[in-house]
């Protein structure tokens, strides 16, 4: 630690330069993005680095030409429902696997973990066929016409509610929750459901926050699966809307920059507000 105390050495100067360049490179695109959302398209391309005065014009373009509020709402709805139902389902499973040991369930847990290896591109193809004709068996039996879940928010939510990784992560955390407490509550006459909801869950809010953040960001930023299943403008999420804007014949760069900025706000807010849980969720993956 003598490096820190010594006032000035060449190696310390070098370290400062590395850190300064590194931070600049990391932060600059964000600065440029925010500035870009106040500029007209030409100024964005040319690379003006000082804020302009077209923020309101860009906001108008983003809402009128691109329907930003709808895309934002679609993304928010999908991510929130995924977090709400997903954390519940995965927490229940983690609790069940950890606090009710059995050989059969351990076997299922093993299979669950094994599927973590499968890359997304490989699972989405058969998944697409399934979701496209999701209600086909019901339709055939009852003569209804529910069809499938393509081009629907639920078709994006449901396949990703269960997450083997989140179950694994929460189970690791439930290991730290003493089984004695579960047993004591049981002796006191609490039902299992109540033990889970009123005793286990409240004592693990930090872990649930990490799990919720991971699930929220995964769904908020998700691209491949929505790209496959979303067909109409009305169901587009922000990533899909943004990427299709890039393919348009004329691109309103200022409006697009504003939308990119807005699309980052929720994740940045969660990250800045809950940094510790955020990083705990990431690092938890190797512990």
């Amino acid at each position, binding site marked *: 630690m003598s490096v820190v105390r010594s006032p000035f050495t060449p190696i310390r100067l070098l370290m400062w330069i590395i850190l300064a360049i590194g931070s600049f490179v990391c932060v600059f695109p964000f600065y440029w993005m925010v500035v870009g959302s106040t500029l007209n398209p030409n100024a964005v391309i040319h690379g003006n680095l000082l804020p302009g005065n077209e923020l309101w014009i860009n906001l108008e373009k983003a809402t009128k030409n691109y329907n930003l509020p709808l895309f934002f709402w679609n993304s928010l709805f999908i991510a929130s429902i995924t977090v709400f139902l997903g954390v519940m389902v995965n927490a229940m499973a983690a609790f069940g696997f950890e606090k009710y040991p059995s050989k059969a369930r351990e076997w299922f847990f093993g299979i669950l973990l094994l599927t973590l290896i499968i890359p997304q*591109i490989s699972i989405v193809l058969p998944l697409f066929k399934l979701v496209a004709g999701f209600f086909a068996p019901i339709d055939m039996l009852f003569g209804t016409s529910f069809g499938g879940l393509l081009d629907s928010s639920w078709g994006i939510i449901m396949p990703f509610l269960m997450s083997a990784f989140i179950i694994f992560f929460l189970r690791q955390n439930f290991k730290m929750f003493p089984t004695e407490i579960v047993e004591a509550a049981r002796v006191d006459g609490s039902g299992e459901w109540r033990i889970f909801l009123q005793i286990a869950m409240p004592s693990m809010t930090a872990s649930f926050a990490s799990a919720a953040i991971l699930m929220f960001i995964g769904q908020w930023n998700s691209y491949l699966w929505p790209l496959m299943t979303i067909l109409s403008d009305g169901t587009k999420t922000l990533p899909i809307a943004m*990427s299709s804007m890039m393919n348009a014949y004329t691109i309103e760069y200022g409006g697009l920059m504003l939308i990119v900025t807005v699309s980052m706000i929720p994740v940045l807010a969660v990250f800045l507000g809950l940094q510790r849980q955020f990083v705990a969720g990431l690092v938890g993956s190797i512990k």
Partner: protein
Amino acid sequence: MNRKGAFARYLNRSGWLFVTPALVLFGVFMLYPILSSLYLVTRKWRGMTDSFVGLGNFVRMAQDNQFWHALGNNFLLMILQVPLMVILALVLAVVLNQGIRRGRGLVRLMFFLPAVTSLVAYSILFRILLQTNGMLNNLMLSLGVIQQPIGWLNDPFWATITMVIAITWRWTGYNMIFFLVGLQNIDPEIYEAAEVDGASKITVFFKITLPLLVPVILFSAVTSTSGTLQLFDEPNILTNGGGPANATMTAALYIYRQAFVTNSDFGYATAMSYVIVLIAGILAIVQIRLLGDRK
């Protein structure tokens, strides 16, 4: 005895109740697709109809140069990008851990910011930034660094470089966090002992710090390799569909395009996706072998 048996049954039933919702979802959205892919892979789609081709899709794949070219691109990006990023992340972590005391949290936060960005958002930003008439070229031209604009996205060579730069920007801070945790887990007494023995800083780094970080380095290298194998968002958006001239076409993008863009042949796309599973499986085994006994 009987009461004890009833209690055990009660616990077992409760256990099943807790895991059932997850297992049902797992069965429907994971196991069923995996099993049904065994059927898909034997079919060939022509428009709305499909027919049985047995192993025909695999035969076709073996002769499909474009697919192997795409997979080759994945490996090229791996070889270029993963070592660069791991070294960079390691350097930043060490510098951050030693170089400054005040403001360390802020610098760490700035380094981590790219990892919070969605792949779509940063791909769009980089694509606008790197256009031939875009800001980076304009800046470099006006500074006199280059005489001609660089085709960051239009020239096959530069497009590959662009991918390497973009992915490195996105993931270095993320990997740095793991190295920082690794560095902080090293017992300070080891350093003190080395200092007493008169070891130089460079000796300490190469003889003590680096060997102790090997597990984290391996973890970071293997997960990054596996990530590079699955590259999709960047080639689809940043280089607009794996361009130019398929220079940045990746396996995942090629598979997607076979199923949704150029063709709608799910059987063939599934056959190719099996190769990706196979490689991912090998990587997972490598990861377990390398890291399993160290923990």
